[in-house]
């Protein structure tokens, strides 16, 4: 039977753990709301941008002069995987699900004889991928210093990726991130960003109107495509931020509940031990008195 003092210490320590996880849950909830708002605020831009690009790229896709970002390099030998994860842990399966998807994709590509290069955004993904794909990692973007996610960060990553593309370092780029569905459900998603793909989702939208372009179409495309990469990265970052907080919130909620259960169990054990000690003492006293 563990002694009473140890049990008491144990209960205290679990109680303070519960306090911490509870606090983390509340912080995550507050951050989640902000992240969700940011994701929603970014949506109109991305939607319009995609609508315009869908019209433009449909028109330009057929011509030979289409920019390289749209038509691709003509090869699919070298793949760049941009794996976007969080800077911090304690957020349930958030990072693992992204990494798992990226790992599966990488292995598939490797067994098909392709070359895989990996660029990680966020510390956690790098840690998890380093052992297996250490040789394939070409760069890492640290988001640790970023307090508030802005378009500037996305532009920075986009510039990095585009420079490599211009330098002929890869043919196809895919980003991996978690799509925010709800607090309890985040969907790991792979999305190809180079060569650019825009879904023309609306039939009656910009596709049916003939626009005047100023400057001409190709010049606009050449200017907008790099921006498209940044925009897609930015929405992925926003989705990821919301997902991270959602995942952390439910993970911490679970942890808080488990701590509560543990405290209950330990308290019962503590009370039983105390009772046993008292009973023992009584027996000793009584048998002592009888012996007289």
């Amino acid at each position, binding site marked *: 039977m563990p002694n009473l003092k140890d049990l008491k210490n144990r209960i205290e320590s679990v109680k303070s753990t519960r306090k911490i996880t509870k606090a983390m849950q509340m912080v995550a909830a507050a951050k989640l709301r902000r992240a969700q708002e940011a994701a929603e*605020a970014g949506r109109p*831009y991305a939607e*319009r*941008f995609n609508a315009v690009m869908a019209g433009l790229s449909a028109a330009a896709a057929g011509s030979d002069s289409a920019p390289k970002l749209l038509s691709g390099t003509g090869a699919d030998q070298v793949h760049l995987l941009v794996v976007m994860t969080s800077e911090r842990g304690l957020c349930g399966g958030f990072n693992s699900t992204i990494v798992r998807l990226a790992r599966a994709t990488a292995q598939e590509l490797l067994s098909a004889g392709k070359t895989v290069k990996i660029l990680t955004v966020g510390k956690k993904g790098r840690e998890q991928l380093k052992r297996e794909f250490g040789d394939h990692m070409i760069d890492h973007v640290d988001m640790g210093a970023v307090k508030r996610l802005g378009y500037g960060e996305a532009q920075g990553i986009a510039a990095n990726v585009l420079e490599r593309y211009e330098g002929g370092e890869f043919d196809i780029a895919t980003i991996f991130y978690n799509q925010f569905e709800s607090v309890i459900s985040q969907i790991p998603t792979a999305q190809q960003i180079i060569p650019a793909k825009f879904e023309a989702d609306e039939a009656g939208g910009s596709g049916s109107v003939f626009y*005047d372009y100023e400057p001409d179409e190709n010049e606009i495309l050449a200017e907008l495509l790099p921006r498209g990469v940044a925009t897609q990265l930015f929405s992925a970052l926003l989705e990821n931020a919301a997902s991270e907080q959602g995942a952390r919130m439910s993970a911490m909620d679970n942890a808080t509940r488990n701590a509560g259960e543990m405290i209950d169990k330990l308290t019962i054990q503590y009370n039983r031990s105390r009772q046993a000690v008292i009973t023992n003492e009584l027996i000793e006293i009584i048998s002592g008195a009888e012996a007289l």
Partner: protein
Amino acid sequence: MADTLQFDLVSPERMLASFEASEVLLPGSEGDMTAMPDHAPTITTLRPGFLRVVGADGTKEFLVTGGFAEITASSASVLAEQAVPRDEVTREMLEEMHAQATKAHEEATPEKVDMAAKIVADFAAAIETWV
């Protein structure tokens, strides 16, 4: 014919403005243009400059750092890289933009040099009048 068009100004981070306007002056990359109702559908890229929108409750001005605009007969959507309403513009911002424009002007190719000079002049004037 409608006498207003739907004006939207969005940046990647948020939606800055959305209201009915009667005219929108855009800093197009090949020259200023004013979008009014029933304008021919146009897509244009923007240069760093100033956006002026005449709406029901007065004229609103924004500083934009570039982006593009989609104009149709009934709407004008500006997708700016960064946009700041006039009352939030500070002298430092303008001076920085001016410095950037001056640098771009010095490095500009002969066919782009006129436009670059215009951007420099725009910001020089804005430093005088805006703040």
